[in-house]
């Protein structure tokens, strides 16, 4: 195996050898390597297959823009990670990585057959081909596409890693630790601004840090040496925080940014354990400096995708930063000066190379240097084809015509083992546009640049289109002084020498003597879209860049078109004959690079996913085999599975016991709002549909609350405790919303009312005892309390002590039985409950859960807001006209009760349903029809509540049915998957219509 590590650099520690596995084979690299640099050092270029045609693909870049070298890390079901860019993954001992999207292996790939049938797979292929026949989609097309669409495998078990979140505030955030970012951060921090500098790489310095060209100097030093000194300087600044391995994922409004800090991805397995893997920084910065640099552009020519074809500047970084050469006989194909730096570097390390330059001629310091070194330059030439299956081995070049539209002359064939391409530079304007910034287009070198229009953010350096060093430093310093309103003189006398690029020539789609249809000029390497695809899309009538993008899938892979979007735009503009700047760009959406879900959710997983609210009695319920139901955040006992009963049996037993003797329910979760103030009665008058002024002290009343649109919003019992003091109860789920709605009216509509609202839901625990024997149990608990119907009638309230602890007792009922609710301070809730159970033993006092509660109230036809209502039911729809005051001038929602729509007689209305077969239990949510044969079937409504009543020994259900009020006795049908169930409309009250049990 040839070894391509040809010289030492300070970034690679050759004393620390690291072994790793790639596609099952063991290789060695050094500490400081990325997976990509280590593979290249071992001569491995072929790292994957393209998405559509399964063409062999090699490493293209050295950073976040990498489209090809994406791999699967590890193989454990819970920890394996797909789509990791080898160019960013730092090498560690024991790393196991494999190439993606190739089966059975990267060297022999069955999907490669697509390459030979590629004329059959044009743009929009999937849309066009798989449209018909429809029945083929589920069974044939989709499995086929899924099988070949191999962008890695997801873990199949929960992620065991720990992720963290952190909120921080800074005066200045600098994104990017290249030369302009370092200068900006230094200027800010030295002027007493609390500053954060983030960079996604392991060390600061960007591309200047390995720069070693003698014609580029700062203060007479190599720019890399000068910058290293600056980095040492800024590390001493006390109000500067530097975060490396940290990338900005999203830039939201108001300078709120999300950054992902990688903490352990570079560590060997055993050192990763029990550590936080990644931290999501939630950053608020008063000012943001964007210094994200630029990305080199590929060139679009025939077969530009072979392994061994890289971006020219990446070849330079692999050489000067990692000490690795990408080949021994390299050709650089360029339209600008930057490839000459690569060429000179290669030359100085003894690597044979030559340059093919699109430009007719060029003159600058760099070009003169290359010429003086004897490097061969083909000006006005273009690469027209490349050869070599697993790696490039030769290529053809031709001369360009005067206008650059065609090739002329003879083909020159050149051998090589690596091709570097440079189509110029694309400023990384992602952050600027994510923040809401707009772009300008610079025709000169065909770049989109930030349009500065914000006081809160600015772009500096090459992401602002400043490419030569003198421009970068001078402009950065001036802009930062102005932006931060400071007067920093640190760089006043800095002496910069650099080569200035004088000549430019850009051709988005390079000409060829072969027609476009017979070439493979790739634009998006990962998604395999070609120049031909783009042209086809235009021919078929697509014009908008957003449409062309989706139709051809250009820029839609995991790299989000970092390398391809500009070329797609350029070719569209050329083909359509419009100016490129007029087309706009596709939208740059966060995240900049993919984020794992773990980072986004942080610690909020498992039991921390949501707040859990438990009542004081919770432990008792657990000990007594309660199954729990989630109601909002509350855990409520659903039913108690005595002696291993199933739910049905438990509910039947509980329901019967409650009506035969006594039942007890933990009602602590009901919302409780304490209402005080001299206008409390007036306030209740306005928020409930019924009248409240005349409610006597010590009495309770059921109330229905509407929205302003007349629809039922909440219900509950409110008790008048004293002249100006009420206690309102709400549904469990509605508590917070009701309080907030009441506050809204108090603060904004009726500020003149003297009313104070306090949520006391958590302050009191409530045990609700019902059934014919409940009075006897109460008597045992409160022997001094007169429980006679005269002294303590239904819908009234008393206070008494239980072992010296004050209790509020309401005689109210949600089951239709004689019933008491005992409220006690929450800390005594558990004791109260146990005393009730103890006192109730001789009466078979049976604890029951929410399911039995629902069943018991359904027997009585009492609604549950949110189950029998859905925000479209008026009181009249619920057959509850009795609760709407005719006398009150106004209350919330009153006017809406006689809008043309709410008085319609064919609204859906609450009814009871009885199945013809009393054993048949309906499914809640089931649709109700009258004529099964009509097409389409006319839907009349749906079942809202359904139970088997043990007390009536038959199935009962509540439903909402169109014009239901007038349908009593009418036969309807519930069509189910396998049968039609016959039902009869009934009154919604099934049991004890005369309300006798309430005083039993």
């Amino acid at each position, binding site marked *: 195996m040839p070894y391509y590590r040809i010289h030492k650099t300070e970034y690679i520690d050759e004393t620390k050898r690291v072994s790793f596995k790639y596609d099952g084979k063991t290789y060695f690299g050094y500490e400081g390597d990325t997976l990509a640099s280590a593979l290249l050092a071992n001569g491995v270029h072929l790292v994957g297959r393209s998405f559509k045609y399964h063409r062999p693909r090699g490493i293209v870049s050295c950073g976040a823009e990498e489209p090809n070298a994406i791999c699967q890390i590890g193989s454990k079901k819970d920890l394996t990670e797909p789509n990791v860019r080898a160019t960013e993954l730092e090498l560690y001992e024991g790393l196991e990585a494999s190439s993606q999207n190739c089966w059975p292996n990267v060297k022999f790939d069955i999907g490669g057959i697509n390459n030979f049938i590629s004329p059959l797979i044009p743009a929009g292929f999937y849309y066009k081909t798989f449209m018909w026949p429809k029945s083929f989609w589920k069974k044939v097309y989709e499995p086929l596409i899924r099988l070949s669409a191999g962008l890695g495998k997801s873990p199949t078990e929960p992620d065991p890693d720990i992720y963290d979140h952190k909120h921080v505030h800074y005066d200045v955030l600098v994104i990017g630790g290249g030369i302009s970012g370092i200068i900006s951060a230094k200027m800010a921090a030295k002027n007493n601004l609390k500053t954060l500098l983030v960079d996604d790489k392991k060390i600061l310095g960007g591309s200047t840090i390995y720069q070693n060209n003698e014609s580029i100097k700062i203060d007479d030093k190599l720019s890399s040496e000068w910058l290293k000194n600056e980095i040492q300087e800024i590390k001493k600044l006390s109000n500067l925080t530097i975060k490396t391995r940290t990338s900005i994922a999203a830039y939201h*409004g108001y300078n709120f940014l999300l950054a992902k800090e990688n903490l352990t991805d570079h560590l060997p397995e055993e050192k990763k354990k029990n550590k936080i893997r990644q931290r999501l920084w939630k950053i608020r910065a008063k000012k943001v400096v964007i210094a994200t640099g630029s990305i080199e552009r590929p060139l679009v020519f025939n077969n530009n995708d072979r392994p061994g074809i890289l971006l020219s500047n990446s070849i330079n970084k692999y050489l000067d930063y990692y000490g690795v050469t990408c080949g021994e006989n390299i050709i650089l194909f360029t339209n600008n000066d930057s490839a000459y730096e690569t060429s000179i570097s290669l030359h100085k390390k003894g690597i044979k190379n030559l340059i093919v330059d699109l430009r007719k001629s060029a003159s600058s310091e760099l070009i003169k240097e290359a010429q003086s070194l004897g490097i061969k330059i083909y000006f006005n030439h273009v690469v027209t084809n490349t050869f070599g299956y697993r790696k490039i081995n030769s290529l053809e070049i031709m001369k360009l015509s005067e206008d650059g539209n065609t090739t002329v002359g003879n083909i020159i064939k050149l051998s090589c083992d690596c091709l570097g391409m440079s189509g110029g530079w694309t400023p990384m304007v992602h952050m600027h546009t994510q923040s809401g910034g707009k772009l300008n287009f610079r025709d000169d070198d065909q770049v989109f640049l930030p349009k500065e229009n914000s006081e809160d953010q600015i772009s500096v350096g090459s992401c602002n289109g400043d490419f030569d060093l003198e421009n970068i430093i001078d402009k950065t310093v001036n802009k930062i002084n102005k932006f931060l309103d400071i007067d920093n003189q640190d760089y006043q006398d800095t002496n910069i020498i650099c080569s200035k690029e004088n000549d430019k020539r850009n051709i988005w789609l390079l000409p060829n003597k072969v027609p476009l249809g017979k070439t493979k000029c790739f634009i998006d390497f990962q998604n395999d879209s070609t120049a031909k695809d783009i042209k086809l899309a235009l021919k078929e009538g697509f014009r908008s860049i957003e449409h062309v993008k989706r139709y051809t899938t250009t820029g839609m892979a995991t790299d989000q078109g970092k390398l391809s979007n500009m070329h797609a735009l350029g070719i569209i503009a050329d083909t359509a004959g419009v100016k490129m700047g007029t087309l706009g760009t596709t939208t740059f959406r966060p995240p900049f690079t993919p984020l794992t879900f773990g980072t986004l959710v942080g610690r909020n997983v498992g039991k921390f996913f949501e707040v859990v609210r438990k009542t004081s009695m919770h432990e008792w319920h657990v000990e007594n085999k309660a199954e729990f139901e989630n109601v909002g955040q509350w855990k409520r006992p659903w039913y108690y599975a005595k002696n291993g009963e199933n739910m049905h049996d438990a509910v039947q037993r509980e329901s019967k016991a409650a009506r035969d003797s006594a039942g007890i329910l933990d009602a602590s979760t009901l919302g409780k709002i304490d209402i005080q103030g001299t206008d409390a009665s007036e306030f209740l008058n306005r928020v409930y549909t019924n009248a409240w002024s005349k409610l006597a002290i010590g009495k309770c009343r059921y109330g229905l609350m509407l929205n302003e649109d007349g629809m039922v919003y909440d219900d509950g019992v409110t008790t008048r405790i004293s002249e100006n003091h009420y206690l309102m109860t709400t549904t469990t789920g509605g508590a917070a919303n009701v309080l907030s709605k009441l506050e809204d009216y108090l603060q904004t509509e009726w500020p003149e009312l003297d009313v104070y609202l306090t949520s006391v839901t958590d302050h009191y625990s409530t045990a609700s005892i019902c059934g014919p024997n409940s009075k006897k149990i109460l008597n045992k608990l409160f022997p001094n309390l007169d429980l006679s119907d005269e002294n303590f009638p239904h819908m009234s309230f008393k206070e008494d002590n239980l072992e010296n602890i004050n209790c509020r007792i309401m005689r109210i009922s949600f089951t239709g039985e004689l019933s008491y609710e005992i409220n006690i301070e929450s800390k005594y809730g558990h004791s109260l409950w146990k005393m009730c159970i103890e006192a109730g033993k001789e009466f078979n006092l049976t604890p029951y859960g929410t399911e039995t509660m629902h069943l018991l109230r359904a027997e009585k036809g009492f609604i549950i807001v949110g189950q029998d209502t859905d925000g479209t039911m008026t009181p009249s729809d619920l057959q509850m006209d009795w609760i709407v005051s005719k006398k009150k001038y106004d209350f919330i929602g009153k006017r809406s009760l006689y809008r*043309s729509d709410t008085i319609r007689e064919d609204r859906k209305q609450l009814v009871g349903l009885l199945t013809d077969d009393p054993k048949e239990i309906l499914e809640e949510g089931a649709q109700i029809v009258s004529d099964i044969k009509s097409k389409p079937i006319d839907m009349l409504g749906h079942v809202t509540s359904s139970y088997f009543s043990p007390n009536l020994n038959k199935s009962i259900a509540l439903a909402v049915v169109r014009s239901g009020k007038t349908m009593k006795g009418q036969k309807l049908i519930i069509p189910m998957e396998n049968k039609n169930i016959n039902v009869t409309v009934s009154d919604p009250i099934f049991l004890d219509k005369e309300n006798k049990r309430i005083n039993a």
Partner: protein
Amino acid sequence: MFLINCPFCGERDQSEFSSGGEAHIVRPKQPTELSDDEWAEYLFMRKNIKGIQFERWNHTHGCRKWFNVVRDTSNDKILSVYKMGEKPPVNYK
């Protein structure tokens, strides 16, 4: 994500607040005297402006106070905050 300057608590993250829609829609004092159309105007019709909009916000996870906000919906800049009952700033229209 907005930073909202609660008139009672100061600058806080948007996640502490909830929006209450358009401001200065006064609940009619005599709803019964309104026609269906007039009532519907109050109940349903909102301006939903692209540009400068007056809105109600509630500091739900803070002081629980309602207040008014002037926001440019085209760039999300909050131009002014003021308490309930206070007159809207006149320099925005």
